[in-house]
Structures are given as C-alpha cells and as structure tokens.
C-alpha cells in the first residue's frame, strides 16, 4: 500500500474500496463498535460476534447494504469470507499506524480508559485547531500523523532529541556495566595468581 492509497478488498463477490480520504471515517466506524485496543487485547479469544458487528459497520460505511448477522454467518461458515474479512480489517488498521521513525508515549503511564485511535487524532488535530473537522475527515491517516509530528516537535536534550539522548544513556550504562565486569575479572585473576 502506498502512502496515499486507499484500501480495497473482496466481499460477497464484489470489490469494496475505501478511498484514502475516507479511511479515518471507516476506522471511526470500526472503533465505535470495537476499539482497536479491545481488538488487540482479544488475542486468541476473538469474539466473532463483536468482530462481525465491527466489520459490518465498516462495510456499511463503504456503501454495502449488509447486516452484522449476515457478516457473522458468512465468516463463520465460509473460510474464504473469513480470510477476506481478516485481511480487510488488518489493512484498515495498518493504514492508520503512525510512521515508524518516531517513538511516542515514552514513559507515560497507561490510561485507564484511553480514547480510540481516531478519537485521539481528532482531539489532537481538531481540538488544537491545527485543521478543521472537515479537513480532518478528508485526510489520509498518514497525513494526520505527519500533521501531529509537525505540530509536536520532539523534546531536545542539548542538540540531541529525547530519544537519541535516551539511547546514548542506555549505551553508556551498558558500557559501564561491561567495564565493571572486566575490572571484576581482573581482580579475581590477580587474587588467584597471588
């Protein structure tokens, strides 16, 4: 998937396409039923009913006329439909991942009931007046993350970013531990020689 591509997938013999400027809307529909953190927490205990309901919401947003129970039946009885639904949800979630080059949330305590991904982006972008609500919903997820990055420059420690400073500190700690181990070995060798 390119930076500005939408996603498309097969469902019930048809190709369903979600253009890039509707991905955030589709994700919001998904999260209305099943927040991404809840989906991730399911692990091996996937709740088929809830996932079907969430996928049906996405399909309806994309223009399909389908009920959750139909999605449930189709994905339960038809392995190909199940694989298609899984691939579609995965593609939709991947489309909204932040770019990998920056680490965020370092050292933050987890919130008890954090908002969904789209809600967080909306609060940051529209809430801070960085873009209008209309402009937000027309953005691709990648553009939304770029805007967040541009508006929240990384904290600097001297001429280093906070992440670089943290990396440097960790390396120094490792080096120090190695030196301590070596000096311990040398002392032990001298002791045994004496």
């Amino acid at each position, binding site marked *: 998937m390119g930076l500005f591509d939408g996603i498309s997938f097969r469902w019930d013999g048809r190709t369903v396409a979600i253009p890039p400027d509707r991905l955030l809307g589709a994700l919001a529909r998904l999260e209305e039923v099943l927040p991404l953190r809840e989906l991730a927490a399911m692990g091996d*205990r996937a709740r088929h009913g809830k996932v079907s309901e969430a996928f049906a919401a996405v399909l309806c947003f994309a223009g399909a006329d389908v009920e959750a*129970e*139909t999605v449930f039946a189709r994905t*339960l009885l038809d392995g190909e439909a199940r694989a298609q639904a899984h691939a579609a949800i995965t593609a939709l979630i991947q489309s909204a991942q932040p770019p990998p080059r920056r680490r965020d949330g370092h050292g933050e305590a987890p919130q008890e009931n954090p908002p969904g991904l789209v809600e967080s982006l909306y609060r940051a972008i529209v809430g801070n007046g960085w873009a209008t609500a209309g402009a937000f919903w027309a953005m691709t997820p990648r553009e939304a993350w770029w805007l967040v990055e541009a508006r929240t420059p990384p904290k600097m420690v001297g001429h280093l970013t906070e992440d670089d400073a943290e990396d440097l500190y960790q390396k120094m700690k490792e080096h120090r531990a190695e030196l301590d181990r070596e000096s311990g070995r040398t002392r032990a060798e001298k002791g045994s020689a004496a």
Partner: protein
Amino acid sequence: MSAFSDISIGWDGKDYVIEGRQRFRVICLVEEEVTIGEIAGMAMDPARLKATSVAKGFCAILRFLGVTEVQGGKTVPITAETVFVRMFGEGADGDGPLVAVTILLALIQPHLPEPTAVRPNRAARRKSASKAGRVDGNR
C-alpha cells in the same frame, strides 16, 4: 432472509424462545463469557470442557430471557453460580454440561443467507420463523 431462525430453550421446566432477530445479540452476550472457538473446542473434545465458562455463557442466555431467582427474599436476575450448581453440582445430571454445550453450539449456528436483492415481506418472514427448529435444554 435472516441468518437465524427462532430457537427454543428449556430451563427449570419452562420453555423460552429466542427469536431469530434476537439471536445475534444473544451470541454477542454469550461471547463476553465464552468464545465460539472455545465452545467448538469443548464440543469436539469434552476433556476441554470448562465448567465455569459453560455456566457463565448459559447464564448470559438465561439473563437475556429474563430468568430470575430469589436471593434473600429479593428477585434478582439468575446468577452464574446458580447455573453452575444446577449443571455441575450434587445431584446434577451427568449429561447436563454436554447438553449445555450443545445448546450453545445450536445457538451460534447460522445458515448462510442467500444474496437476494429483495427482502421477503414481513408475512413471509413470520411464516419462516414459525417453522424454526427447537432445542430442548430441559434436564
């Protein structure tokens, strides 16, 4: 055509009906307690049967149906503990847990809806609902 038809469940000598249009909602409630994968696993291999999960899943159905019990003089929704004791406690029928798993399986079993352009009218849907199968959970 709906993916589900009406289903009848017996409990404590009484029959209850879950309408086809309600079944998906009930399945979601059951899955809060025990997932379809776990139910299928228990049905295939009774050695994997988890008594508390079955009791909780079945309790979710009974609560949806409005089944109550009396606790300290008050009428309250039936609890998973009561369901557990009735299914697995002293004097319970040895087949009870397997019957419960079978009912859970029957509940989640849909039929594949045909992709039709025209929905049948209400009278036709009622007629089809009245032909629904019945699963008896009486023990």
